[in-house]
């Protein structure tokens, strides 16, 4: 895509309401800064990668964005069905409703995002039932369909996730989150903790889903290969601050900030 096309795209986007508009988001832990003055827009169909080392503030930022952590300052305006709303100041009931309808959250550890005592089919069906699905046959049919999309065979749907490998558990967690067609997916190190070969398969699968569904997502990772493959745009964090942001290829191929240069070069050495 040429620069001219990009600027046309940028102009189009200015007239369109962002799906998520973040302004001045700040979280402190006592004197220590979690994240400071983070601002960005995410448009529908975009995947934003947030990279940085551990302690850079990227996980704190994600927790604040998803409503798991209350920020000290700033706004997180989500374009709800009833128009743009600041989710930070929203009543908890409403935020939780958002979390099981328009939003989804994929945890690094599948155990945090799955019900280990419930079958794979029940795990996928839970969100459907949470929004009122009351037809067993239809819930099951949708669960089978989604398990298929994440390459879990239908004959495993009545097995509990504890009988699954780590990679399968993570694919199940993704299916469980995407089954209701969320408009925004938060992902926290979705490939972390998996073997390299398993990571590659998961990434491939995620890329397929992102393209197929036109997903909007915010992915936090320390793994530049993940964002290279999935993210349209990239935000680089260091010490709680955003030090650089831009189109993924631009940032990775021509990093401007010294810290980004360091990150990129260290990945090249691997």
């Amino acid at each position, binding site marked *: 895509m040429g620069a001219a096309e990009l600027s046309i795209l940028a102009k189009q986007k200015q007239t369109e309401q962002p799906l998520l508009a973040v302004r001045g988001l700040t979280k402190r832990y006592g004197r220590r800064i979690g994240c400071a003055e983070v601002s960005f827009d995410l448009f529908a169909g975009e995947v934003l990668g947030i990279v940085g080392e551990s302690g850079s503030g990227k996980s704190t930022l994600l927790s604040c964005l998803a409503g798991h952590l209350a920020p000290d300052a700033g706004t997180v305006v989500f374009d709800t069905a009833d128009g743009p709303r600041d989710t930070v100041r929203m009543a*908890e*009931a409403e935020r*939780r*409703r958002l979390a*099981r309808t328009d939003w989804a959250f994929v945890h690094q550890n599948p155990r945090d995002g799955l*019900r280990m*005592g*419930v*079958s794979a*089919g*029940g795990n996928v*069906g*839970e*969100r459907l*039932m*949470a*929004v009122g699905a*009351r*037809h*067993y*046959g239809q*819930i*099951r049919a949708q669960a089978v369909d989604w398990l298929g999309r994440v390459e879990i065979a239908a004959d495993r*749907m*009545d097995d509990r996730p504890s009988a699954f490998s780590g990679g399968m558990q993570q694919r199940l967690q993704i299916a469980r989150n995407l089954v209701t067609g969320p408009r925004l997916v938060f992902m926290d190190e979705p490939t972390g903790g998996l073997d390299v070969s398993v990571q590659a398969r998961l990434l491939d699968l995620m890329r397929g889903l992102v393209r197929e569904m036109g997903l909007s997502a915010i992915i936090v990772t320390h793994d530049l290969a993940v964002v290279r493959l999935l993210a349209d745009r990239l935000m680089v964090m260091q010490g709680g601050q955003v030090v650089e942001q831009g189109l993924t290829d631009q940032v990775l191929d021509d990093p401007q900030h010294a810290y980004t240069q360091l990150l990129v070069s260290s990945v090249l050495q691997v």
Partner: protein
Amino acid sequence: MTDQAYNFAYLDEQTKRMIRRAILKGVAVPGYQVPFASREMPMPYGWGTGGVQVTAACLVPEDRLKVIDQGADDTTNAVSIRKFFQRTAGVAVTEATTAASIIQTRHRIPETPLHEGQILVYQVPIPEPLRFLEPRETETRKMHELEEYGLMHVKLYEDIARHGTIATSYAYPVKVEGRYVMDPSPIPKFDNPKLSDSPALQLFGAGREQRIYALPPYTQVVSLDFDDHPFDPSKAAHDCDLCGAAASYLDEVIIDDQGGRMFVCSDTDFCRGRREAGHVGALGVPLAEGGM
């Protein structure tokens, strides 16, 4: 008669007032679990201390008390609770459902329809219907507050996935007045329809868990289900062998060493009443002749 070492109905007036406040709150918010400070009772928790405290807080000297366990008035548990209140409150007792003003029960709702003015007190072991899948108390309270009940259907989904049908046959979850999901205590699901629109006041007491909840008279209570797996109260395909009742809940009783068995009403008062009225089941003999 009354043992003077105790206040009327064992509990002191202060404690009874505290329990009555919890009951009133429960009546005001049907199906909502009200915390209360459960007291030590002179019996083990498994013996229905929650129900006993609720009964103690409701009893007045004019009451006529009936106590049943699995439908029967003569089990050890029922007998000891009945004796406890005879001793500590000196109230009249009865086995006749229609004659009782307060009925304390474990595991059953009487077959004979209840009437206005009666109080049915249930002994509850685990009041939280969501605990099966969500052990965190803070989270289940939040789920009730925000009406996040999808998890309840996950439990039923798991039932069907595993057994081909909703296999839950006791403590079958219900929704009260379209708002709170409630555990009806371990009554058979056969009894669930009796929970709804009852003329009697229904009170639920969990001693160890320190919760009281209530269904005021004529409250709508709906058993949870799926559109394609509707709630089925299910009944054994038998009539009572003693009284011939076709629509009562039956216990299977082994009657000899050769594996012979018979089906009899679990509600002993109901069964006796029918036999006294002349009904005779397949293995029964008319009461007048001194049959079993």
